């Protein structure tokens, strides 16, 4: 069996997220080097602040300002920073209870090594040089010698000029995608200008493109069969919207094509005929461009149209 195909696949989204009143105040505050918490009904101060009490679900709006200094409540030494993490040199992940807060904030601590980190150590915020209203406005924490201030948190109205109302949360994940045995065989055959499907050993249906299983019988389809090259248009639509990065003149026809010998129609673009002359029953064949690994489009064969009864089960 030939090697299965593999290719890099990058999934990337810039999620745009809106902030409620509490998150907006907190993140805008970071931009202004001010750390805000929120007071719960029973008087605890949550930092970072949330809009609803995690215990009682009470709505929380009572903002307070806490100190940019605090105490490590637990930590973990990270010898190998990964992409996107706050520091690119080895650092400690820490939960820090800021002075005036009752809960821990997760962030990174810049320290020379694990021996320099202990639970209970004092730390302070190191602000990012450029701040935009995001958790990354705290570049990291750094060791700090001073004791905790004994003044409690101060009330804060949460108002700032030009408050941030949203963040863009970048997400990127890298994969190596493999389509598996059946689709590898299909894709490799297309590069040789052949179309192969797989036959269900139970119901004898031929699936193109094959996905490795028969959805009716729930069994593996391992019997490979060549289909086409010609086929019949079973249904179609006329596309009037241009897709991004697609260099095809509008309008064009996108069709379901039942290749001869296949029991399932596949999708393809129809060209070589005016768009308004494409019809159900039209006989078509695949066209490969120079060096193409898959059919660029399908064109009329010139044969008479197929009789409806020959493809009605596949519409």
């Amino acid at each position, binding site marked *: 069996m030939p090697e*299965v195909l593999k290719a890099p*696949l990058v*999934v990337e989204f810039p*999620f745009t*997220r809106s902030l409620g009143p509490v*998150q907006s105040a907190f*993140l805008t505050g970071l931009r202004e080097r001010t750390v805000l918490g929120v007071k719960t009904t029973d008087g605890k101060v*949550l930092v*970072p602040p*949330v809009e609803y009490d*995690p*215990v009682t679900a009470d709505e929380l709006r009572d903002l307070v300002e806490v100190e940019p200094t605090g105490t490590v*409540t*637990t*930590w*973990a*030494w*990270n*010898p190998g920073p*990964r*992409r*996107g*993490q*706050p520091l690119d040199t080895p650092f400690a*992940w820490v*939960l820090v209870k800021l002075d005036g807060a009752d*809960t*821990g*904030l*997760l*962030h990174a601590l810049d320290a020379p090594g*694990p021996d320099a980190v202990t*639970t209970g150590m004092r730390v302070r915020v190191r602000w990012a040089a450029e701040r935009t209203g*995001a*958790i*990354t406005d705290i570049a990291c924490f750094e060791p700090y010698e001073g004791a905790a201030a004994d003044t409690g948190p101060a009330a804060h109205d949460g108002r700032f000029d030009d408050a941030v109302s949203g*963040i863009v*949360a970048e*997400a990127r*994940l*890298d*994969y*190596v*995608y*493999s*389509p*598996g*045995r*059946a*689709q590898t065989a299909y894709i490799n055959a297309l590069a040789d200008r052949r179309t192969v499907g797989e036959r269900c050993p139970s119901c004898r249906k031929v699936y193109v493109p094959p*996905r*490795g*299983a*028969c*959805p*009716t*019988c*729930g*069994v*593996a389809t391992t019997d490979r069969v060549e289909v086409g090259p010609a086929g019949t248009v079973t249904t179609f639509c006329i596309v009037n919207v241009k897709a991004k990065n697609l260099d095809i003149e509008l309008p064009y026809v996108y069709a379901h094509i039942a290749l001869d010998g296949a029991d399932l129609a596949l999708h393809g673009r129809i060209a070589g005929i005016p768009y308004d002359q494409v019809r159900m029953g039209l006989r078509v064949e695949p066209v490969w461009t120079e060096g193409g690994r898959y059919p660029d489009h399908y064109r009329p064969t010139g044969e008479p149209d197929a009789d409806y009864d020959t493809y009605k089960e596949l519409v």
Partner: protein
Amino acid sequence: MREVAIVAFAQSDHLRTTDELSEVDMVMPVLHQVLAQTGLKASDIGFTCSGSSDYLAGRAFSFTMTLDGVGAWPPISESHVEMDGAWAMYEAWVKLLTGEVDTALVYSYGKSSPGSVRDVLTRQLDPYYVAPLWPDSVALAALQAQALIDAGETDETALAGIAARSRESASANPHAQVKGSVPQGDYEVRPLRKGDCPPVGDGAVAVILAAGDKARELCERPAWIRGMDHRIEAHSLGVRDLTDSPSVRLAAERAGAFERPVDTAELHAPFTSQEVVLRKALKLGDGVAVNPSGGALAANPLMAAGLLRIGEAAARIHRGESDRALAHATSGPCLQQNLVAVLEGDTR
């Protein structure tokens, strides 16, 4: 309440990579095995429910591909959870309790090999305050481990002991990915060493549920579900006591786990330190066989590892090795969400 039991359980071998297999190629043999155990055909099943995650596959609606393996045409009654299959089983259990169906097929699978699990799991975190820092799953578990060490509840030697016991138990499990004597290795994120962390791998699992007499007909000794419950804690790690798991305790209480002692506990603890938390919260005595299958430290196919725990516990009842077992599944960072099922065999 209607009696519902697990009557069959099957799993794949759990492997580091399965490039040559599509998801349906990986799942289908497991579905065939679990059906064969009962003699049921796919068309006999009243309800099908599955669990998986698009973030592992890197593709939207990836679960629809595996539906080919259950024979989804003509149309079947089907549902999916973007979670571990343990939660799919919870949905199926509720469906059986309503009396609407008598049998259910539950399966789940995870192919972690195409991506980086540590990066993928950051995407389940709070997107405002936490995810932008990209703290990976090992880092968050390590914060919990250090909190336990500081509290005097464990130390690195004890954690290494949990790792060794799990992999030793896995020696008897033909499907396990990591078994036998495995060195603890270097720190991944201190205080957790490589041996304290689960393997990354691909795998699939399936169970069949049946109600009342149907269960007795399909299985010699059904694993009756006496109770099942799931609970969640706050998403912010800083508001939680990481050395405890009130959600697992509550789920266990509601599932009836504390009414009588169990003899077996299959715990979904991907990190050694999490077993320490779970044992305490579930009040498990030394006489309880914990993770005789090797647990998630021996094979941790994401989205399947929780249902595997339930399946392994049920299989021990089927084989007569257990009379009353607790099965647990978790999700989220540092045991944020927990599901507990209590299973029993008929008295002999």
